[in-house]
């Protein structure tokens, strides 16, 4: 079976400096891929470049091919012009933006906004059909159709996020990209939205790219995960494998910093320093200045290579059979 989405050697440059570099991945129909990493690591840039929606100062290159199940021919997104992309966006790939609160039009009713999306992307739909679809969509995302006749300020944060998801589903795309869809929400609301995404994936056979800095959220929702650092994928593989046995020190340290209820309380030693400046990462392995295991070898660029079945890591020392104890680094308090 061929993949729904193939991304090869994606690169995004800002003034000649790469902020996303050599990113490749594939996605099957109905599969959920999680993109993890800290701010500035290139997650959102990667997502935007899949839809060719990057700000004008950024230049992208690399292959992006989408094979929607309802089309004979694959769509070469990388070769499409802006006009050509307008028939792809929302019809085949849609995006749930970070901060749904600010993405809805404050002076239009909710149903009018959904209707606009449908009318723009599909010709010859009757008014009646549009209304039926809107009611359907709102019900699908767990809202009552009556909410359609409201303004966004009359909705709660969770409801607005559901409306954003309804918008993303309006033209029945085969791939939805959700960029931090739950970051602004409370635990309960977050769990509700994640449950909704999972249900949609099962019921509609949607493929999902979920971007989050919260590894717990990704573990629950995704089949595979890709961890990004300084514009590159440093580790990728099935969620079960990566969580049970991470093969890159960065992934390992991120996972250690998550409190797991019922496990040991207290703090794991934090990763020293901060994420590097995007566009100006350190030489060699970008993580080496913060890595407790780095040696001279790390000044050379590690390649992303398979180290366990289906699991790849960009670390010279992978596969790691065990992790040496880390001396707690003082993060500043005088003793």
């Amino acid at each position, binding site marked *: 079976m061929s993949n729904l989405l193939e991304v090869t050697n994606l690169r995004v440059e800002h003034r000649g400096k790469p902020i996303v570099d050599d990113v490749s991945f594939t996605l099957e129909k109905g599969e959920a891929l999680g993109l993890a990493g800290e701010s500035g690591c290139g997650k959102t840039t990667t997502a935007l470049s899949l839809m060719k929606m990057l700000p004008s100062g950024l230049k992208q290159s690399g292959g992006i091919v989408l094979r929607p199940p309802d089309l004979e021919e694959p769509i070469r997104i990388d070769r499409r012009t802006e006009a050509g992309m307008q028939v792809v966006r929302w019809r085949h790939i849609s995006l749930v933006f970070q901060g749904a609160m600010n993405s809805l039009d404050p002076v239009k009713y909710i149903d009018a906004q959904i209707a606009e999306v449908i009318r723009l992307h599909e010709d010859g739909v009757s008014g009646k059909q549009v209304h039926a679809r809107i009611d359907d969509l709102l019900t699908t995302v767990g809202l009552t159709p009556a909410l359609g006749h409201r303004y966004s300020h009359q909705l709660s944060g969770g409801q607005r996020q559901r409306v954003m998801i309804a918008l993303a589903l309006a033209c029945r795309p085969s791939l939805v990209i959700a960029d931090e869809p739950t970051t602004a929400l409370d635990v309960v609301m977050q769990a509700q939205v994640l449950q909704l995404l999972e249900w949609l994936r099962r019921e509609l056979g949607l493929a999902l790219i979920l971007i989050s800095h919260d590894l717990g959220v990704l573990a629950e929702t995704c089949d595979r995960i890709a961890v990004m650092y300084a514009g590159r994928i440093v580790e990728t593989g099935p969620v*079960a494998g990566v969580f049970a046995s991470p093969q890159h020190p960065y992934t390992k340290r991120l996972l250690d910093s998550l409190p797991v209820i019922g496990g040991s309380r207290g703090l794991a030693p934090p990763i020293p320093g901060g994420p590097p400046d995007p566009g100006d990462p350190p030489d060699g392995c970008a993580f080496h200045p913060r890595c407790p295991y780095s040696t001279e070898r790390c000044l050379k660029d590690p390649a992303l290579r398979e180290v366990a079945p289906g699991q790849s890591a960009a670390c010279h020392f992978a596969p790691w059979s065990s992790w040496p104890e880390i001396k707690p680094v003082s993060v500043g308090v005088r003793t």
Partner: protein
Amino acid sequence: MNENNLISVRDLEVQFRQRRKVARALDGVSLDWKKGEVLGVVGESGCGKSTLARAILGLQDLAGGEVVLDGNAGSGRKARSDLRRRVQMIFQDPYQTLNPRQKVKDIVTEPLVIQGLPKAGRDKTVRAALRDVGLDPERYLDRYPHQLSGGQRQRVAIAAALVLEPEGLICDEPVSMLDASVRSQILSVLLELQKRRNLALIFITHDLSLAWSLCDRIAVMYLGRVVESGSAVDVIEDPRHPYTKALVTAIPVPEPGGGGSRELLQGELPDATDVPKGCRFHPRCPKRFEPCDQVDPSLQPVGTKGREVACLLYSDATLRADVEPTHG
């Protein structure tokens, strides 16, 4: 009043007027914050967590109740300035809380000036405070907030809050805007200082796993009330109030498929202008029974020492009738 309490809060009420309606942001909160204790306050947005913090510091007019410092229910300016010197606060957004036109030096010195401390020792104190939060004074004293990263700003905020050597520090979502690696750095700074100075901390957060891993005690708030409190391990690992159970169920589990087929709380937090009659949680409660829409439960001791729950399931036998409390 107990000597060991840094602050005791009794029947605290805060109300906000909205046209003709009144929002009861705090509706009878009682809480003890012991000296040197790390107390977690958790709940959904709008439950009154931040209002509680502001009320404790006297930043909010009270509609009722009292804030007691050290067992002395003093009021007036003296008590207020005492409280502000001994209890400080840091906020969620380090991008908005620092004055963009002040240098780090001035930000950290300001509390000393306001409290009228002698000029002579100020510079030394400020340098020590910066070193305490892991910032090299030589490099950072003359910087402006825009020259700092989010984590560094939060460190400056902590330095400014701790320069007066308070006994208590209220942290309102101190790390929710920060990235994973920076987050654990800031938490380690806070906790190391807490241990070294026997500082009492209040951690306001909606992240239950964080509260579980760092706090001695946890208070769970719902719609302006504390509905459950007790040791952090007890409350999170064995929640008793149906609301706490619902919160714990909603925590994302960092294990593949960790969500499983859990039952989630439906609906949203009701409007504080329209608090449901009886138990305020009853419209969303999966375990509600006969008197829940009539009787407003108060906090009662349940189970282990120091554990309190406001739920009719655990109330006295006459009300409970034939309903058996479900444990665990």
